């Protein structure tokens, strides 16, 4: 049985070209990038090339690119780093941070930790379509607001947040403020990189997080773009790597892989082709599922959304059961059901969008990647309606 992978928002396979670029750095060019000898120089060259590749994609300076262990660390560094720096001179300074209710846990959990450091946090609500509203951003800004962190693309429903517009609001507020009271803008662009324009000046962000393993690179490598002049304290201390902002021996092979993966994203024609195909597959799936499965719901705005994402709710079925039955057919998807979350809480994203809990339990996310084909969608369409019908038949709730 051919296995079909439709969970690209969870992670992607490493592209063979990326793997090829990485390989020498495990063995022949294994040096420590901080060493002065030729082994170290080779490794250093690999790291710096990757930095330039990322800088080219973001259209920033290469010194503004900091490599991390992944986007979770990037987000931690952005939020903790900025808040702690703001308080470095005045520990009692009142600090306010704005984020959205639909952020990834790598931002939400950081905010929860910040709360313990007496930081006030506003979680912006979202519309039914899964989008942050600009008037809510405006209303939330206070004199003590120093940081706004809004994800570029939501990982569960794929909605594209109005980053440029939020940046414009912040710019206007900042025009009336001194440098010390400036609001900085961070975006978690992990789910955006494959599909959206990530040029940082165009977006108007001060910090931006990326992850390698969502863009056909390796796990364990990420980036935080930090615009020059953004005041930040490190959160990891040690050997002063990455200009002292992120200590720790560079994950050279991983960083090289990240650079190569990002480089592939700068091939605009190729990306356009890949995404047009992905969109075709996604649109076919959405159209057919809504037609074939009774009371199926599509979650999230269909227009302000990346082409790779489809997120459905099937009433009176539980998502984990669907996931496992699909897995038995060799098809991999994910779910926002409480039963699979570990916390036994249903998806915080769908909940914030106003989807009722009994419906949220039946949520299924399908995310496409560049290797998916029409046959993959057809296989899914062939088995999913039967699985939902079978589970509904098992359910005590009859419609």
């Amino acid at each position, binding site marked *: 049985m051919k296995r079909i992978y439709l969970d690209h928002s969870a992670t992607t396979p490493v592209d063979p070209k990326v793997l090829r670029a990485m390989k020498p750095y495990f063995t022949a060019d294994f040096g420590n990038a901080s060493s002065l000898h030729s082994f170290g120089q080779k490794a250093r060259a690999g790291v710096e090339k990757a930095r330039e590749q990322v800088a080219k994609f973001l259209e920033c300076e290469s010194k503004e690119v900091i490599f991390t262990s992944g986007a979770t660390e990037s987000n931690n560094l952005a939020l903790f780093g900025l808040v702690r720096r703001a308080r470095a001179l005045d520990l009692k300074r009142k600090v306010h941070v704005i984020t959205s209710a639909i952020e990834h846990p790598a931002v939400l959990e950081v905010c929860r930790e910040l709360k313990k450091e007496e930081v006030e946090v506003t979680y912006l609500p979202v519309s039914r379509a899964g989008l942050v509203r600009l008037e809510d951003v405006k209303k939330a800004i206070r004199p003590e607001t120093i940081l706004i962190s809004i994800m570029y693309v939501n990982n569960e429903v794929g909605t594209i947040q109005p980053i440029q517009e939020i940046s414009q609001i912040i710019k206007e507020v900042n025009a009336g403020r001194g440098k010390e009271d400036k609001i900085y803008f961070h975006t978690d662009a992990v789910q955006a990189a494959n599909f959206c324009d990530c040029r940082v000046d165009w977006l108007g962000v001060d910090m931006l997080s990326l992850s390698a393993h969502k863009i056909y690179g390796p796990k364990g490598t990420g980036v935080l773009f930090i615009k020059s002049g953004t005041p930040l304290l490190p959160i990891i201390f040690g050997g002063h790597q990455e200009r002292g902002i992120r200590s720790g021996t560079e994950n050279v092979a991983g960083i090289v892989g990240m650079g190569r993966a990002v480089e592939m994203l700068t091939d605009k024609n190729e990306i356009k082709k890949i995404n047009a195909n992905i969109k075709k597959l996604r649109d076919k799936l959405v159209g057919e599922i809504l037609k074939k499965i009774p009371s199926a719901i599509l979650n999230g705005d269909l227009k302000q959304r990346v082409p790779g994402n489809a997120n459905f709710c099937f009433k009176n079925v*539980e998502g984990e*059961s669907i996931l496992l039955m699909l897995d038995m057919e060799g098809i991999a998807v994910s779910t926002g059901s409480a*039963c*699979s979350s570990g916390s036994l809480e249903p998806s915080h994203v769908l909940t914030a969008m106003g989807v009722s*809990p*009994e419906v949220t339990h039946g949520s299924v996310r399908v995310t496409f990647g560049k290797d998916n084909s029409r046959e993959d969608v057809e296989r899914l369409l062939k088995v999913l309606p039967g699985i939902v019908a079978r589970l509904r038949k098992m*359910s*005590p*709730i009859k419609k």
Partner: protein
Amino acid sequence: MSQVIYSKEVIKHFKSPHNQGVIKNPTVVGESGNPLCGDMMKLYLKIDKKKVGGKEVDYIKDIKFETLGCAAAIATSSMITDLVKGQPLEVAAKVTKANIAESLGGLPPIKLHCSVLAVEALHDAIKKLKK
């Protein structure tokens, strides 16, 4: 996310649950769970009398379940029907969530509460019978 890895037995029962469905004229129906929490269960019981050690007792002649829930909820539903079918009510009432989990080759810690669902549905049925 916590790791949820199911035993072979759980997957077996999830794939092909035993005694799934409804009994047309049940003696009693036990219910548990709540759709808000994502799981809900109904147990249909047919009670009859049989002689055990010269004494006439009520026993579960037939049992079927309907469940809305995850793999653990479905597997525990299936397992409780196996454990109590043909058993005197008094014996069935003593089945615990630990018995169910054990018979399934264990449940992931986060899923242990699913076995409560099955026991609660059975207890609900027995309570209704006593009324």
